[in-house]
């Protein structure tokens, strides 16, 4: 029990951020029109590519070949997620814009 409380205390700031971010995430997108569901999903998909930062950190402190190789792959995959995600979203939204101007 003591350890659980200690864990909470040691990580109180992170837990704070997590809980508030949950509400923020819900609040931010709760009034989105149906046509934007897919681009929004795609945009959010790109944002979780932020995991690439973790990959950079791991690779930045890798001390053996296996970690180097896995880290390299992780950075490549994470970057794919970020770049591909944002570009795909932009292309989807471009379509919306094009039709707007024609209107």
């Amino acid at each position, binding site marked *: 029990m003591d*350890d659980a409380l200690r*864990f909470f205390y*040691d*990580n109180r700031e*992170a837990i704070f*951020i*997590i809980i508030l*971010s*949950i509400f923020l*995430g819900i609040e*931010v*997108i709760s009034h989105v*029109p*149906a*046509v*934007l*569901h*897919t*681009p*929004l*999903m795609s*945009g*959010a998909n*790109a*944002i*979780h*590519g*932020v*995991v*690439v*930062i*973790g*990959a950079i*950190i*791991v*690779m*930045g402190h890798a001390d053996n070949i296996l970690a*180097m190789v*896995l*880290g*390299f792959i*992780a*950075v490549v*995959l994470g*970057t*794919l*997620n*970020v*770049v*591909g*995600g*944002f*570009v*795909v*979203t*932009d*292309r989807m*939204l471009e*379509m919306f814009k094009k039709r*707007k101007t024609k209107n």
Partner: protein
Amino acid sequence: MFSSQISILEMSYILASVLFVLGLKKLSHPATARNGNLWAAGGMLLAIIFTILFHKKDGAHIGNIHWILVALFIGTVVGWLVAKKVKMTAMPQMVSLFNGMGGACAALISLMEFPHIPAELIGRHGMLNGETFTILMGLMIGSVSFSGSMIAFGKLDDKIGDIKTKLMRYFNLAFLVLLVAMIVFILLMPEKPEMIWIYLFAALALVYGITFVMPIGGADMPVVISLLNSFTGVAAAFGGFLYNNQAMLTGGILVGSSGTILTILMCKAMNRSLLNVIIGAFGGSTAGVSDNGDKTVKEISLSDAAVLLSYSQKVLIVPGYGLAVAQAQHLCHELDDLLTSKGVEVKYGIHPVAGRMPGHMNVLLAEADVPYEKLTEMEDANKEMNSTDVVIVVGANDVVNPAAEDDPASPIYGMPVIKAWEAKNVIVMKRSMAKGYAAIENNLFYHPKNRMLFGDAKASMQKLIAEIKNL
């Protein structure tokens, strides 16, 4: 420890988080959506650059910089090219693919961090500590997200079929219990286990991702992708927790929670529950298969259809998933042009969830250069239905099902639909009498006003265009 560099790094993370939030906010309004995407991308760039420049662990800067830059370069070039080259119709697949990459990235991070769990932590209570738990959760969710996304990708690309047996449901449940049991098992170990246990755990999570997505229908993949998307967000957040990294934490959680809400919104637009989608069986066995013994279906010949359309004044095309599958949007536009040149007023009736992906039809038809003015929303299409001569239903089913209006027993009762049956004539283009994704009977097909044009949407459309040209 305080240093000006760490301070700057943390500031960049705050700024990145703010940009993520504002980006998401802007993404949910049509006028600002494109900007929102750029803002979020800006936040990401900022966080990545400052991490490389200023991140320190135990006083050591990020090393292996050359290799990191090479990896970033490869990822950027490949991601950019793939995203730019892919056809508009294949967008959902791409989202799924990139989502899987993120999941794999999170899983790999956990895999590499596991050997680094500090010995002093293990000395206290064995493996029972927050760090182990965080790593295992990141590994599990990331792996499930990766393999699940790959299956979803394959399904959308028509490379993988569905497995629909009730057995899968129990199998999956058992699998999930096994994974949770393994987490508990590892947590209760007195000292750090051999890596083989971790690899085994990761392998099981990968298999679970596959069996989780396999029974879910191909048409429901967008919902699944949205769900897996929020999974990856959570996996990224576990990574953020591990490194005490605020950018990863807020970014991941934001996506996790907004992704979950988005998934629920998507389900709502289809008048279904998330559980219903995941279980994958849409009451196909019991509901709505009451009495179709004495009902008859009338077919229409190509020449009749051609004549009917050519001499109409007002035609409404209702596209659905079948149009997307058959890639018939360009032919649809050709038919539209042909009829318009004959003085027929052609419009498109777009159901909000036609194609089982919100906005799917808008994107498809825009790709075929159908002018925006021709697309009418469901409500407006319904208002004009009485004065419409012919409704052509191309590969849509549930979104034109009258049961949603008049059969309280139907699973889709209450879902707003396009009331095709109120027009003077209906032509349904369909491959067979098979049921739609909801697996329920569609009485529109037996409606006295309706006639069926059987065949693949693309082939039928081609023949129909040729027939009209020959008139």
